[in-house]
């Protein structure tokens, strides 16, 4: 395959980006505001609100981390097919500061005494070990304590921010700087490999901290990989959605074609299967060994309140998208693929919801407007941070030396 000659010109969409970011901001303010109001109205010291907020936060976080991984892995493998959509991935990874803003309210349940009497704390139960597992949870104090937890949180965000900045900067440099030695390209290539190690460790521990410790007596070594599978699925879906949107608005008509959608679709198929594989491994091993210290997690998810949803997730998160993505035609039709991508995002959110909420309330599924509102708010915040970058930067990494190959790329 010979590379296509490329017009090395930026694809700028500042007006569109500004418009979208405004929509994002409005969604963020309305969503989070409504969520907060609804939460306050429940009169539970905002407990429900904070759990719902954590779901929204996790949803946001999978976009950002998905973007980071996507960018890293394209560099480490020297992928050519993905160059035309990579900038969107870079925008997604560069939303770390907004994620940091979103993390600030989480300090409240960590640092206040609110709700301790009634529920033993607002969010993470280990803040004040209580209940039948109190002794076990107290044993984990060297790791699960508030100062260390906040320290780690800051550390993760800082590391991600530095990584995102590094790769964003080099990528932009590539656009304008026609360096014959390809210094930025090579630098990204070189640092992406250690970057992935850092990514793997921080993502794993962040998911242990923020999500797994919502049930502090429970543990699973594969948990980080499980969250990782969701991140990858999310970012590919997001790249499809944003590309289709841009094309619909008249941008990048040529730069993203059926071949790229086909590949993005393949990755969504692959990671749907991967997610199922990880989820099955986790469930099956715990179900099979039937050890009391582990089964609690699945036990609370197979109560009357959660059983239906647990079984449904198998269908909605595996069977439906798997057979949906199976056909070559679906993957090559942008609009159809975008619909599936939206579907993937929705069921991914369901997965996060299912991961977190039963730990708050095993007896009843508290699903309501409050979750919807906070999630829309979190997504709006992400959208704002994501689209803000389009105001200043090209939405295409037009200086990447592999762009010609990318455009010539053909699936078999």
């Amino acid at each position, binding site marked *: 395959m010979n590379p296509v000659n490329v017009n*090395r010109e930026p694809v700028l969409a500042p007006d569109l980006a500004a418009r979208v970011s405004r929509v994002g901001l409005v969604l963020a303010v309305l969503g989070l505001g409504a969520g907060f109001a609804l939460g306050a109205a429940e009169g539970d010291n905002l407990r429900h609100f904070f759990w719902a907020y954590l779901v929204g936060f996790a949803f946001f976080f999978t976009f950002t981390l998905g973007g980071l991984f996507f960018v890293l892995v394209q560099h480490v493998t020297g992928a050519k097919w993905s160059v035309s959509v990579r900038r969107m991935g870079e925008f997604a990874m560069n939303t770390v500061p907004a994620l940091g803003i979103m993390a600030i309210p989480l300090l409240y349940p960590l640092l206040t005494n609110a709700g301790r009497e009634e529920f033993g704390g607002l969010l993470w139960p280990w803040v004040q070990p209580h209940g039948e597992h109190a002794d076990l949870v107290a044993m984990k104090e060297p790791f699960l304590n508030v100062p260390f937890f906040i320290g780690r949180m800051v550390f993760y965000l800082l590391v991600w921010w530095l990584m995102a900045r590094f790769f964003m900067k080099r990528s932009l440099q590539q656009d304008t700087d026609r360096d014959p030695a390809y210094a930025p390209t090579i630098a990204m290539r070189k640092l992406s490999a250690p970057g992935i190690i850092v990514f793997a460790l921080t993502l794993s521990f962040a998911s242990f901290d923020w999500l797994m410790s919502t049930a502090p007596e429970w543990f699973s070594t594969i948990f980080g990989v499980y969250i990782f599978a969701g991140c990858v699925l999310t970012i590919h879906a997001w790249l499809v959605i944003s590309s289709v949107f841009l094309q619909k608005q008249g941008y990048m008509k040529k730069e993203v074609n059926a071949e790229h959608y086909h590949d993005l679709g393949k990755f969504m198929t692959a990671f749907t299967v991967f997610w199922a594989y990880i989820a099955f491994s986790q469930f099956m091993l715990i179900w099979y060994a039937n050890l009391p210290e582990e089964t609690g997690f699945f036990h609370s998810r197979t109560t009357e309140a959660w059983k239906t949803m647990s079984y449904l997730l198998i269908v909605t998160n595996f069977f439906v998208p798997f057979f949906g993505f199976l056909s070559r035609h679906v993957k090559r039709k942008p609009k159809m693929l975008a619909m599936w991508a939206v579907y993937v995002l929705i069921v991914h959110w369901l997965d996060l919801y299912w991961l977190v909420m039963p730990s708050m309330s095993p007896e009843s599924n508290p699903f309501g407007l409050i979750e919807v509102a906070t999630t829309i708010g979190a997504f709006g915040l992400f959208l704002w941070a994501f689209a803000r970058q389009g105001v200043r930067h090209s939405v295409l990494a037009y200086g990447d030396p592999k762009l010609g190959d990318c455009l010539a790329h053909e699936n078999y």
Partner: protein
Amino acid sequence: MANTAELTHAELDNIIDPPALVQGKDDLASITDTVCNVAENKPPRAWYIAFLISLGVLGMLGASIVYLVITGVGVWGNNQPVAWGWPIVNFVFWVGIGHAGTLISAVLYLFRQGWRTGINRFAEAMTIFAVICAGMFPAIHVGRIWVIYWVFPIPNQMALWPNFRSPLLWDVFAVSTYFSVSLLFWYMGMVPDLASLRDRAKKKMSRLLYGIFALGWTGANRQWHRYERVYLLLAALATPLVLSVHSVVSFDFATSQLPGWHTTILPPYFVAGAIFSGFAMVVTLAVPARALFGLRNLITMRHLELMNKVILATGLMVGYAYAMEFFISWYSGNKYEGFAFVNRAFGSYAWAYWIMVSCNVLVPQIFWFKRFRRSIPVMFVISIFVNIGMWFERFVIVVTSLNRDFLPSSWHYFSPTYVDFATLIGSFGLFLTLFLLFCRFLPQVAIAEVKLQTPHAHAHHGDDH
């Protein structure tokens, strides 16, 4: 409006990627010649020497199996509490080795990694032979080998069926499916190359034999069309299959309640380990083979370097899993779990644990440096280290979790017998004998697929394509 810094494909490759995959005089005929000559001519003397040695070692395997069968599994070091001794260690080791082939063939095919073509045939053959070695161990471990067919659901006079809730039975299905599908995949890829050998053959016998297995292939495009589609489908099927096989092997351990075995990350961790050891074995074999049979232009330094990168990456994944297990064993708050891991690192088998960690995690770090990634002696030595390390990983998993039982009264230090050694070394004899026969008589490199990677396979009709 081409920019001054516009790149051509070749320039880009030179700067970012190393030189093209097929080197030297790479017209179509010379590719055919290079590969077919090996099968057509008498092999170098080193081949005969290696073959004789392998046959001798294979004989040792035969003798130890005969001794085992007529005497019983008591000839091994297996005993309570370490009832799964070397046979299972060797089984997992060989199954792991058997993962690189199908992975290179299928997964890299799906990822459009053109570089796989130089080594895929080779690695697939290795898979087949490694799985044969692997399958042998549980078979002889059952003791009464003549009733091994009981593991298959065959209607029988006992009117009973195998227990499908047992991970050991899943193994039977996973390994036999993996073997069958890998064999199909290997053979299917070989059909066009066998046709090349048939059409070049001058002797009646080789025309007949290659001809039979070439199935009358003539390279008709209508056939190529279906062939390529099916090859893609097989790749798409083989990819989750590869993952499933070692996951199922890991279930043998992870479904149990034994500390050190029961951990949810075991499936992907085993898969990563399998790929790691498999690639190491490919390097171990490819380095001498390319020198011996003059395949340096087809299995280039770039192939080796890329494999070394995969070794580095999967080695890191394995390291990640070691770390996660250790962390969670503490985080779980389960004393037994914690003890199992501390015991691994500082107990009576600490030496094995630290061999494992150094060979699998520390040693491959040298591949961060391009100079070492591209040094034949370094990679050869490291690949052997990795093989050793991965054998010890299985040893550590199997033995350390068992040897310190829940009852300290039954603690027992496991030591192998000479039959254990003879069987393990003998399995290498089986593997190498098959492998050397493959090298001698079959196309070692996928001729048609390598041709597809050359510029000759593509029409040069402009850039407006």
